[in-house]
């Protein structure tokens, strides 16, 4: 188990931090590995170990999020009025603050698949396993999430004009 912790701690911690913030991430991560230690015999190898750990972590994050009575997206998606960071040519096409706002305004279902695929780096199948939904649903949610984001950013752009 120690090897598993050492190998996946950072991935699990970041996974948690993106959902409930860095302050609570350590607790959630610790609970994740304690649960994994207790239930390691349940792991059948049908998915990647990391995905299995993410599944446990997701449950702990949801519990903590609920206990904390937090509403809405995690802190890093909340707009804070900062100037958008513009790093390169592509970045100049999208206002990052507007993007945060658009992400925060997504439904939780859509936001979750976006986070899992785009930031956590999970495949559609892994996200489907984690969320216990069909892979087609993941694909559909991502399509709609991106469509909403693009629409939101276009609307923002048009609002500025």
């Amino acid at each position, binding site marked *: 188990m120690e090897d598993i912790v050492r190998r996946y701690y950072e991935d699990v911690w970041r996974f948690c931090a993106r959902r409930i913030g860095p302050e609570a*991430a350590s607790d959630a991560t610790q609970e994740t590995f304690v649960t994994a230690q207790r239930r390691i015999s349940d792991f059948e190898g049908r998915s990647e170990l990391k995905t299995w750990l993410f599944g446990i972590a997701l449950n702990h994050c949801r519990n903590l999020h609920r206990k904390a009575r937090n509403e809405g997206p995690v802190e890093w998606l909340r707009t804070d009025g900062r100037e958008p960071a513009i790093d390169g040519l592509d970045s100049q096409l999208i206002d990052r603050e507007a993007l945060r706002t658009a992400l925060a305004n997504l439904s939780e279902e859509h936001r979750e698949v*976006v986070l899992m695929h785009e930031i956590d780096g999970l*495949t559609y199948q892994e996200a489907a396993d984690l969320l216990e939904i069909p892979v087609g649903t993941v694909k559909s949610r991502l*399509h709609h999430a991106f469509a909403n984001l*693009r629409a939101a950013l276009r609307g923002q752009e048009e609002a500025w004009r």
Partner: protein
Amino acid sequence: MSDIREDLKAFVDHELPPARTDEVAHAIQGDPALQREVVEIETLSKEIRAIAPAYRPVGIEDTLARIGAKPRSGRSALPRLAWAGLAVTAVLTGFLVQRGGQNADSGASVLVRGEEGRVTFDKSVARDPEFRETGGLDEAPIESAPMAKEPGTDLEPSRPKNETPAGVMPSGEPSVGAASADDAKPMPTEATPNRRQDEKSKSVGPPQAVTPADAGSVAGGQAPSPAAAAESGPRDQPVAGRVVVLVDDIDKARAAAEALTSSLGGRPDGNRNRLGKNELVVTVAQDRVGEVVESLRQLGKVTQDSTPPASDKAGLSRPSAGGASGTMGRGSQGGLGGGGGGLGGAEGGAPGGRVAPDATAKAGVPVKVTLRIVFVQKKAPSQNVP
């Protein structure tokens, strides 16, 4: 076409089956609007990854502890070991300082000062019979140092230090303290090699208390005047330590010491009338004390170094509650200010006027400390009497 649009995201993500991928690719090739959408989706993907915060995970040790794993002895455990070692060194240093001039005849431990002034713990030296005899001092303390047991074994000053005659134990050498203040006794210690010094690992015993041997009657040397002995460093600085150096030429050594102190950004106090010509008080940044001491080793043989340990020299210690009042000093028995002629006696008014070296530390201001350097004239061991 709408079917194609629904699959664009999956196409960009390479999540479509090969056949469907070909269909979508074909459709995109002939439709600039789809091409634009693909670019938008790719850009959006990239931007979403870019705005994700780059967190630095913490707390793995807590988790390992929770699951019952032992902390790894590698990277994460190393700093703790280093701190533990530092703490042990500090405790030992404090213990030895407290013991002062007492003979560490138990030989349980010794602090070895290396070439760079670092202090380390060397058990092997503690096991050395020589150390057991001398307590790790370059010269055995007065009370325990016998006169030379084997007459005629003294070496000439010019003899290389590593040519220790067989059978000559340094413990049998007369000590500096054993010589009288009237310069009647020779200084065989100077002519006697010190094996540990030869090994680039010069042992320095616990900072010695000021005894008549070094406070006013340093063997064979020109003793400081009583007035000078009663005087302390500049009034605005606590005396951080004292270094006794055996030199061939006091004037030259003193001038050199003044120069080197200046070169290290220090300020020599050249009031010879007050201090006596064989003494020099310098004010120097605390973190350069080690360099000063090392430089003094180039001028002669350092027989006593009661400057703060390496950590203090580096300015790591915090201001003490005793402040400049000198209450941090040792008791009158062997303290720097203790007894008649104690050098620090006038400094703080309290017995053992030694003051925490950074007692005057202020936030953001480099701590300066005062060192007292005593030069002692070397003497040829021409009259060694068993």
